[in-house]
């Protein structure tokens, strides 16, 4: 039991962050908070990838004399791409929030809903 919790601590952290992010996206009505939640959700996946690439006893994946065992560098590279995608998503999302604020005067979901239906 202890082994399940301590030995997989990186997974527990990823799952915790994932749920925090996911819950924020679902439960918050504020559009900026939703994007923050989305970011936490994405970062948890990045951490999952990076922690998975560690090889026990492996060195950082930079060729050094006298080192035979390296961690897997591929997930790092993949996540660099995913981070770029995440930044682009955040930027686009925030740009949309700015435009929504300009045309509705609010960034609260229920108020936006109200204003669409009161017309």
């Amino acid at each position: 039991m202890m082994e399940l919790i301590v030995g997989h601590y990186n997974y527990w952290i990823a799952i915790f962050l994932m749920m925090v992010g996911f819950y924020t996206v679902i439960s918050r009505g504020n559009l900026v908070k939703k994007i923050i939640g989305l970011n936490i959700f994405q970062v948890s996946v990045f951490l999952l990838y990076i922690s998975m690439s560690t090889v026990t006893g492996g060195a950082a994946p930079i060729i050094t004399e006298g080192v035979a065992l390296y961690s897997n560098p591929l997930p790092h590279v993949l996540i660099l791409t995913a981070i770029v995608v995440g930044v682009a998503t955040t930027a686009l999302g925030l740009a949309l929030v700015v435009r929504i604020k300009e045309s509705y005067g609010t960034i609260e979901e229920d108020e936006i809903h109200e204003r669409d239906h009161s017309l």
Partner: protein
Amino acid sequence: MIQAHLSLLLVVIPLAAAPVVAILPRGRLPWAVALIVTSVCAVLAGMQLWAVVHDGVISYELGGWAPPWGIEYRIDAVNAFIALVIAGIAAITMPYALLSAEKEIPEHQIPLFYSAFLLCFTGLLGITQTGDIFNVFVFLEISSLSSYALISLGRKRQALTSAYQYLIMGTLGATFFLIGVGLIYSQTGTLNMADLTARIPEVLALKTIHTGFAFILIGIALKLALFPLHLWLPNAYTYAPTVITVFLAATATKVAVYIMIRILFSVFPDGFVTATPTGDLFIILGLAGIIIASVYATYQVDVKRLLAYSSVAQIGYIALGIGFASASGLTASLIHVFNHALMKGALFMAVGSIIYRIGACRMDNIQGLGRQMPWTFAAIVVGSLSLIGVPGTAGFISKWYLVLAALNQQAWIAVVIILIGSLLAVVYMGKVIEALYFKPATEKNLSVKEAPMLLLAPTWVLVVANIYFGLNTELTVGIAGQAVQVLGVVAK
């Protein structure tokens, strides 16, 4: 030279053209470049399909790095077929885009509009071309991000909120897909899909693989707008600029269908879908989608939204074919991917022509327009017949194969529900036709003229295609059959 790099050119040409179009001066030049790019891509996609059908699978090593280390573009009959559907629809949409976009997009945003369109096109084509599962994620995000931007360009302010809603749900979907890919990578150590096919059977019993599979399934189902994950779709299609609705309705969900089929039947071994509850899940959700989305469609007052709900129902048919997990079921799904692109393309274009003339498409706005716009009205009638599945139209062919697949499995309930879905299509398309033709024209509508030639011509290309592929099934059924053989699904 072109032949050898065909697969890469299909992605590189629109990708390279996108920033060029963005810096072009306002006016019609950006449109002209986009038109040339999409037409060239359609021709290349046709050449690619021809090459694949005659010479077999194309494997293109990006940058000369041998797979599985480098990224491989691997083209067989399945993705060559889907790539042709996308490039073909884009090339037909472009002539339509000129007038429609001038009317709906502010002038200073036109170059950026076409630039984002080309990026979206790149992403969709890229998904079909690549043989690397992480690359799929990257292209998925390229196409999604540009389509969020394109949807937000709609004239009403609801376009912004629907783009935002789509952004949240789309990103959740893509991230789910990313988790799944990571979990599978952790057990197999490869991202190349052909390589995964070879390695997954060894580790198939592991829980990690099953979890990864579930994550990927949910992620793509969101992109696919599979009922009940379709909530983003009706708003996005209703408020997006018409051209974008036409293009996305005909292509975006189709690409998601392709990647779903690729992962279910090609990456995972044959029989996995039926051994796990996946197949049943698709059948149940497909059937529920057909009924519920069709019922929703019957009481919509906005014609675009009505067609959007109908799209969710049509995705139900496609999901049903996937759920049967048999050769005939998949053939039906692939045929319906093609035919649905034709009918929804034609219908959204015809509705777009009405919007072009009167600026709206609510039931009470369009009364009596059928007599003022006879060609547009005729296009809607043929499109509706195809959607219903009347013999002689493309829609009949897909329904026919789907019913055959259902009969093969002795799924009587499915047969009944497919037919009820068709009846509901009669009801909701009947409402549109009633408003257009049988209601007396309002005073304002009496002076409305027929849509310009540049809007009618592309609409009628798709309408004629609907009839042609309803009569001549050699091409669609032949290629879909070959595609299913490639996937190696055992005939049932």
